[in-house]
């Protein structure tokens, strides 16, 4: 069967279901069922896409059958197919988790359509092969995220979402400016064609300026070192399922965009731009480590761990060698999964203790043993203890760092793993060990709700364990993805064939 539009399905299916859901505002049951069906179908489509990309190479379709640089091209290489699949998988579990945790009031106010529209935007941003189309998909996901972050209208949400929107409006304006400059230099918007045109003029100084401008634009979205200031406050405001989606997916879109532009466009004079990226990624790790140790608040500790992971991934990208890029791809997907698992688990901890302050907790292992042990597995996975998922990615990134003579950076990375481990184990020690704090008795919670919250959390943790244990089986996919990043001509030939 000839299915050239296959790569559009993970974008169109959520979009279609989101539109249908707009008609069932009050019928929460219909909304839940349709959302699960929609996400399941998208998951099937994305796995099918993954298998197709593995078997037949990069899938491209230029909409409207225009020849490649003139129409909008959608490109699904292994990197984007993996990210699309991970995105839908995480959303699926988060939606299951939402049933018990988000509250009927929010569910009745376009909560599920907003999630599906956001997934549309995220998958579109991962799949597009046109720089302005990427801007549009960014806006799709951002506008849906504006709704999700403010939905509920609590005092704190309103205060933080104003800041979130303002930061993103400014970065979107910068994105438009960057695209305008790029267009005036190369005269095209198709990403493969841009890469060809930049190669033809051999990256003069103005392209390096543009590289930094793109780094600023995507760095604001992806929270790299001097531009992460908005993230801790904004992400702490919305309820846990929304925080999970944001933490697992949104910053990763920025990271993806940096990776894509720095491996496809700005590859001819990497001395300056990639060194810049390297230094910023190390500073991002340091800043994240400081934040992760500074707080006694569950949410803030994990939120700062997002920033650390962004730094680690970009350090891998900045190496521009096989190990570094393979590690970056592997670690990016690991981090999406593990952050989703951790946020969901701390959401359950907050549910059973009624607080997010570590000092008010203690002794949970006696009453909630399963929660404790699954949290511990996720925490070890995050730090990169060998059989679990964080290990191989970091190993490859560190190896890439040594191969590219950035031993100092690799050592910073290894030390940061210790800090990560300390920060998450501190949660374990404070929340689960010791006696129950007599000043703060556990609130009365329903066993049934607890079990229904645990189910998606346990599944997510098991997925991350499988991702770590099944490395051997996954590695061909990861190396396919990093091949495209290392050698832009594969991407260019796939898009601009003949």
């Amino acid at each position: 069967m000839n299915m050239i539009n296959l790569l559009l399905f993970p974008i169109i299916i959520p979009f279609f279901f989101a539109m249908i859901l707009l008609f069932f505002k009050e019928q929460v049951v219909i909304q839940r069922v349709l959302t699960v069906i929609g996400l399941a179908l998208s998951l099937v489509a994305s796995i099918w896409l993954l298998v197709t990309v593995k078997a037949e190479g990069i899938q491209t379709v230029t909409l409207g059958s225009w020849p490649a640089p003139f129409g909008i091209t959608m490109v699904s290489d292994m990197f984007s197919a993996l990210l699309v699949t991970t995105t839908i998988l995480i959303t699926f579990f988060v939606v299951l988790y939402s049933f018990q945790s988000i509250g009927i009031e929010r569910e009745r106010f376009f909560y599920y359509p907003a999630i599906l529209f956001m997934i549309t935007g995220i998958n579109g941003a991962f799949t597009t092969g046109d720089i302005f189309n990427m801007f549009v998909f960014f806006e799709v996901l951002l506008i849906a995220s504006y709704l999700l972050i403010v939905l509920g209208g609590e005092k704190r949400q309103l205060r933080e979402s104003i800041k979130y929107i303002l930061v993103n409006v400014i970065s979107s304006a910068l994105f438009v400016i960057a695209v305008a400059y790029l267009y005036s230099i190369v005269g095209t918007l198709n990403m493969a064609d841009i890469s060809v045109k930049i190669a033809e003029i051999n990256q003069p100084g103005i392209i390096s300026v543009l590289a930094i401008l793109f780094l600023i634009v995507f760095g604001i979205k992806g929270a790299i070192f001097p531009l992460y200031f908005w993230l801790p406050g904004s992400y702490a405001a919305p309820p846990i399922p929304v925080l999970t989606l944001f933490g697992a997916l949104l910053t990763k879109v920025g990271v993806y965009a940096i990776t894509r532009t720095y491996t496809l466009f700005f590859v001819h004079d990497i001395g300056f731009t990639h060194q810049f990226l390297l230094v910023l990624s190390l500073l991002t790790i340091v800043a994240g480590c400081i934040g992760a140790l500074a707080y006694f608040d569950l949410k803030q500790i994990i939120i700062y761990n997002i920033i650390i992971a962004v730094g680690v991934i970009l350090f891998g990208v900045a190496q521009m060698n096989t190990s570094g890029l393979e590690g970056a791809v592997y670690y990016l997907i690991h981090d999406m999964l593990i952050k989703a698992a951790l946020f969901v688990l701390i959401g359950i901890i907050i549910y059973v203790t009624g607080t997010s302050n570590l000092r008010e907790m203690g002794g949970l292992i006696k009453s909630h043993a399963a929660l404790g042990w699954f949290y511990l597995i996720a925490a070890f996975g995050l730090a990169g203890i060998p059989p679990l998922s964080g290990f191989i990615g970091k190993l490859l990134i560190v190896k890439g760092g040594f191969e590219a003579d950035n031993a100092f950076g690799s050592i910073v990375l290894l030390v940061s793993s210790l800090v990560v481990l300390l920060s998450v184990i501190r949660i374990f020690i404070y929340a689960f060990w010791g006696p129950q704090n007599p000043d703060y008795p556990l609130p009365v919670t329903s066993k049934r709700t607890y079990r229904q919250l645990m189910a998606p959390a346990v599944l997510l943790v098991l997925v991350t364990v499988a991702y770590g244990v099944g490395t051997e089986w996954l590695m061909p996919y990861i190396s396919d993805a990093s091949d495209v990043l290392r050698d832009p001509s594969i991407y260019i030939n796939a898009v601009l064939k003949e």
Partner: protein
Amino acid sequence: MELLLAILIGILFTAAVYLILSRSLLKVILGTSLLSHGAHLLILTMGGLGGSAPPVLIDGVTDFADPLPQALILTAIVISFGVTAVILVMAYRMYSVHKTDNMNELRGNDEHD
């Protein structure tokens, strides 16, 4: 002509940055509008101001303006229009809940909300 527009865009950006750094929320929102005006004008300028006829196919006209930047601007305008509408409603809601439009009074973190 491009130089003149570049200077004008620069002035728009300056004013936008100045307004965004101010304390009143409404001024910040006005600043973001100016910022998007500047960005849209920049797309138009960067596309080149050549071409004597609007990009509409008419017999006998060969020297068209570049149609692509105009399409980009049209897209960017509706997006920034939508976002500005959202942000204005949110600013209104925030004013009615927090009773202030002073950005300095909107601080707060987890320890003291």
